[in-house]
């Protein structure tokens, strides 16, 4: 039995392993260098960036819900130029593979962000945030229409040779159609899912629990829906898929890979246990060993649809 190799080819990106820190859940990465050796991750997707600095929404910005959380941070951020000057050098020093998540209010802003980041040293890929549910303009407005998705991907495609990964929203009826639109516009891969638009109310005061009224639901609660969407997209496109939504354990990672993800992102679970990364890698290795696989790609998209519906009996 050859040793397990966790390396994955994610389009043109060669990742050390398929486990990526999800955007919005690990700051700019540099906040975690005491706790996480960023170079041991497949990649780090840093907090979504606009061209300019942004304040985001007023608190309260998060609220816990059953097996999940709502957030409406509103993309508070330092803007792309400060990121390039202040954070990117630190990330390079950590030997992190950096995926920069970008967000604009116009198609031109996405293209401008892509141009700036193409000139910066140490950016491995761009994740296009066309799916943030917490903004009045930009983001999800593009991600909720096929034309908008196509337009953003197409504009960025013409602005950069970096791999581009549009991050899709689950707040649509047919997510596979959006994956297809992204693929046709020249995306190198897609990532999904972003958070589900949701709301929680304090029944004593009858006020929304978030200052923004609505927010995005993440965490284990959304995992089965995310799995379904990754499965649907896998059947619709041939480009790689970065799957995410409620991953907390190595078993969850494996479930996404089997559903058709070539790599996965882990977000909310990093808030609960920032020391989880080595445990996920170890658990994935053990799974591959146990099933006699030498590499991750052996299990990607291997969901067996021939005899569905019996697994609940054994658990």
């Amino acid at each position: 039995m050859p040793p397990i190799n966790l390396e994955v080819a994610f389009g043109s990106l060669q990742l050390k392993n398929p486990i990526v820190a999800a955007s919005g859940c690990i700051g700019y990465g540099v906040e975690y260098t005491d706790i996480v050796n960023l170079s041991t991750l497949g990649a780090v997707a840093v907090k979504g960036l606009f061209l300019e600095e942004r304040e985001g929404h007023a608190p309260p910005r998060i609220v816990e819900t059953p097996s999940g959380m709502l957030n409406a941070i509103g993309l508070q951020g330092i803007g792309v130029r400060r990121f390039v000057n202040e954070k990117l050098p630190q990330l390079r020093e950590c030997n992190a593979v950096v995926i920069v998540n970008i967000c604009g209010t116009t198609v031109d802003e996405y293209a401008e962000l892509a141009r700036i980041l193409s000139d910066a040293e140490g950016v491995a890929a761009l994740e296009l945030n066309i799916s943030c549910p917490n903004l009045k303009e930009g983001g999800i407005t593009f991600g909720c229409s096929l034309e908008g998705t196509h337009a953003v991907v197409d504009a960025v495609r013409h602005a950069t040779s970096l791999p581009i990964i549009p991050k899709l929203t689950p707040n649509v009826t047919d997510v596979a159609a959006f994956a297809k639109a992204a693929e046709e516009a020249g995306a190198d891969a897609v990532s999904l899912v972003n958070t589900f638009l949701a709301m929680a109310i304090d029944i004593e005061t009858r006020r929304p629990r978030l200052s923004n009224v609505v927010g995005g639901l993440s965490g284990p609660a959304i995992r089965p829906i995310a799995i379904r969407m990754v499965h649907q997209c896998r059947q619709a496109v041939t480009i790689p898929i970065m799957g995410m939504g409620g991953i907390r354990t190595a078993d969850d990672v494996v479930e996404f890979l089997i559903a058709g993800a070539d790599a996965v992102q882990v977000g909310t679970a990093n808030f609960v246990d920032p020391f989880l990364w080595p445990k996920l890698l170890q658990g994935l290795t053990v799974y591959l060993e146990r099933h006699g696989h030498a590499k991750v790609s052996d299990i990607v998209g291997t969901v067996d649809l021939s005899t569905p519906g019996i697994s609940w009996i054994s658990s």
Partner: protein
Amino acid sequence: MPVDIDAVVLSNDRLSKVYNVIKLSAPEIAAISHPGQFVMVRQDCETAPLLRRPFSIFEILRDNQQQVSGFSLLNKRVGTVTDALFLLASGDRLQCLGPLGQPFSTPPSSAAWMVAGGVGLAPFATLAEDLRQKGVPTTLFYGGRSAEDLFYVEWFERLGIRVLLTTEDGTRGELGLVTLPLKRELTTLPPTTELMIYACGPTVMMHTVAALAQAHNRPIEVSLEPVMGCGLGGCYSCVVRVRDERDKNSSQLLRSCLHGPVFAGDQLVWDDLARAV
């Protein structure tokens, strides 16, 4: 550098129907913590409740050889998580990540006043020990709704802390809010006394204390308790509006887990804080 410890519960002392003190074996965290720092705690419970909750480190525990052996948490029941913490038994485990955040500063001063409201007492046990070690004459202004909301008074007195109590129903100490004796003492304190004020409690209380301190031109630090998701700067949920040091007219939202939870009272934009609770 914070560590994550699966700490054993040594004891759970129920102080009343709502307050308890949980003693935890966690020398790794206790030994490197400073007054004002906090931990993010969670019981092993699969996915619900999901997120950790922030708690001030209350006491530093020492064994018979005076070696640091752990710390305690002052808990008040206000919801699902704190209810579960009220029910812990010795031998149970609690996952603790810490120490986190910026501690209180203790510049050389000739007097230190700690102003605590209710569960806001939590960060002051370690601060009191530190101040006494430095030989700073220290006073604790401690207020609660009723006599049964006041704890550890003798503990502070044994350290040599002067304790001034208030209750809103007059069942112990002076009748009124904790700011009542504070106001009086501020007025009579000789201007030559170099005073440092610390406050922790309800936002409206800390706001009043900060305003009084400013009116008397005294430095003050407050320890905030905002909603926190991660404690490490990852989620951006615990931001508070802080004035720019150079330009008082501009401000920015800072993560209180990284830049706080201790802030200089005159740095904070209090109207914003009041709106958030």
